[in-house]
């Protein structure tokens, strides 16, 4: 589904700022991946580059989605293909209700994918159903996108949006950070509900604890702009116990 090949990325405005230095990663349908790694290692950058953020420039390598390069596509075109990013820092859009944003988003994507668009009433039903899934109050539909939301509510709202838009490939960038234990379970439950044979989820996380609820098929460690090690769930446990030091040395030898 997604193949990231030898991806090198720098900051568009300052090409000397190299962030990703040769990332290789393959994600197949039906898989759940976790990416861990120290602060500033490039996890968010990788997610944003896949989603098409214009602040970054790909200097080498490629990103293939279903076999085709998406490097030339705008962020919205990538969204139309079914790529979704739950932001580490969700953005506030005052005056625009969650419902309005999502209906427009849903219908734009549906139109691009040749699926049926929903009228306001149908959409309302669809959105309410997804609200239940992540146990959010209905008033969230009418509230301005993320404006005045608590940290945890913003994260939950990202999952809600994912639930409404039903993407094929979702990057969840630290969606588990800042959630209380009940919210964590709810969000994990939401992720499990939404992942299936046809779609894939990439969890960017610092904590092993969400992996108690969402079973990853693969765990990767990103260090200094590269995937330093990949493994299964045991790798996450080891990281939690031992930190990243043992990998950094290994990585520098590579």
């Amino acid at each position: 589904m997604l193949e990231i090949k030898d991806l090198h990325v720098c900051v568009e405005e300052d090409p000397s700022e190299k962030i990703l230095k040769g990332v290789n990663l393959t994600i197949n349908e039906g898989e759940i991946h976790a990416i861990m790694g120290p602060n500033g290692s490039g996890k968010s950058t990788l997610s944003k580059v896949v989603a098409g953020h214009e602040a970054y420039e790909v200097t080498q390598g490629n990103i293939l989605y279903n076999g085709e390069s998406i490097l030339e596509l705008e962020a919205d075109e990538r969204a139309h293909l079914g790529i979704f990013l739950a932001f580490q820092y969700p953005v506030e859009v005052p005056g625009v209700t969650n419902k309005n944003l999502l209906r427009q988003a849903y219908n734009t994507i549906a139109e691009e994918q040749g699926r049926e668009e929903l009228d306001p009433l149908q959409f309302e039903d669809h959105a309410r159903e997804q609200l239940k899934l992540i146990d959010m109050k209905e008033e969230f539909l009418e509230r301005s996108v993320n404006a005045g939301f608590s940290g945890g509510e913003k994260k939950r709202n990202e999952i809600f949006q994912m639930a409404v838009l039903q993407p094929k490939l979702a990057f969840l960038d630290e969606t588990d950070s800042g959630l209380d234990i009940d919210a964590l379970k709810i969000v994990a439950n939401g992720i499990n509900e939404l992942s299936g044979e046809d779609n894939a989820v990439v969890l960017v996380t610092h904590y092993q604890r969400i992996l108690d609820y969402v079973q990853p098929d693969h765990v990767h460690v990103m260090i200094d702009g590269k995937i330093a090690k990949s493994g299964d769930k045991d790798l996450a446990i080891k990281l939690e116990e031992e930190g990243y030091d043992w990998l950094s040395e290994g990585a520098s030898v590579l």
Partner: protein
Amino acid sequence: MSETEALESMVGGEYKYGFTTDVEYEDFPNGINEDIIREISRRKDEPEWVLEFRLEAFEKWKQMEEPDWPNVEYEKPDFDNIQYYSSTKKKDGKKPESLDDVDPQILETYEKLGIPLQEQKQLQGIAVDAVFDSESIFTTFKEKLAEAGVIFCSISEAIQDHPEIVKEYMGSVVPKGDNFYAALNSAVFSDGSFVYVPEDTVCPMELSTYFRINNMQSGQFERTLIICEDNSHVSYLEGCTAPQYQQNQLHAAVVELVALEDAEIKYSTIQNWYSGDEKGQGGIFNFVTKRGHCRGDNSKISWTQVETGSAITWKYPSVILAGDNSVGEFYSVAVTNQRQQADTGTKMIHVGKNTKSTIISKGISAGESNNSYRGLVKISPRADGAQNYSVCDSMLIGQTCGAHTFPYIESANPTAKVEHEASTSRVGEEQIFYLQQRGMDEDDAISLIVNGFAKEVLQELPMEFAVEADKLLGIKLEGSVG
């Protein structure tokens, strides 16, 4: 020949109303002097007192200087090179009695503007006065309104048919010599609308005037007068568009509103005059004086404006809160893009006791434009318990535009409460990326952000026009990022 849209495609194309209607005009000399003013009055067959009103205004205007305090820069109009009166040729030289007498090309123009005048196509529930250059072409639903006692017609007709009312009120809110452009207007004014709502009447329909400047040589100097007697209510909306010409045209209007006891006037504007091209060539100079007088106790006047057009905008719809407990409101969205400049705001003059005013201003600047809010809240010594609440928010799109606020507060009454809040924000890359990630293209993303920002104002518009205004904001800012 039908309308040409050649210019429209040349200049960006996003301005949908830039076409020209090819009609024949009566000859009228350019320039301004006493003879010209007499000629305007003669052609309109006006009573002597109107001519005197004009001539007195002209005397005052000659003594006045064009103001230079607004935060805008432009080359001063050449007043001798403007045609102050522009009327189309009529079949038998008379004003059309029915739609059959109206030039089909003008009807087609209004249809194209989305305001069909023909009976079977008329907008439901909205009476329209269509003003083309200096003349009112037609007013719909007049009879139906008359049944309710409401008079809705052009000001010229009102001068002929209801002189006593016009005489009493015209110039009573905006005096002849109020300011440079108001004095000019008072000297040469032509058709705007006249509305009179008698006591205890809720106007049964939405009233609206659609202003169209077509003639390249002329300016538009319309005058509008709305009077609401005791315990009456009216909602009125004006829309404005003009063709795209390389040269600037002057629009200097005067609007006067009078609300008597317990009366309420809601006045909304969707201003979409041609704003010039990306180099700042052409576009309307929109220099307008709008003022409402809450003359009676418990009266209310509310201005809502969506200002998207014009090369230069200079207007301050104001309310004099004379009656006790009267209420003044000003809701404004002003969008500037490319080289547009706007200096707009309001004046709330609190005279009566327990008067209340609210100001919500949302300025949006993009391109290389400059957008200023200028507002005065004045509390007179008598105005015990007066209250004002103001919010002035600015939004910047891109790095090359400017936003400014000039709030003035003069309070001479210690019991008054005046609250002012202001904010400036920038539409960020992150905000746009967020919405794009959700599937919207860049233009839709900006449109959504801007509509969210302006929501408090847009929701004040009459329902029928809210959707239109929403779209307009989006179109206006297309391509303003990246």
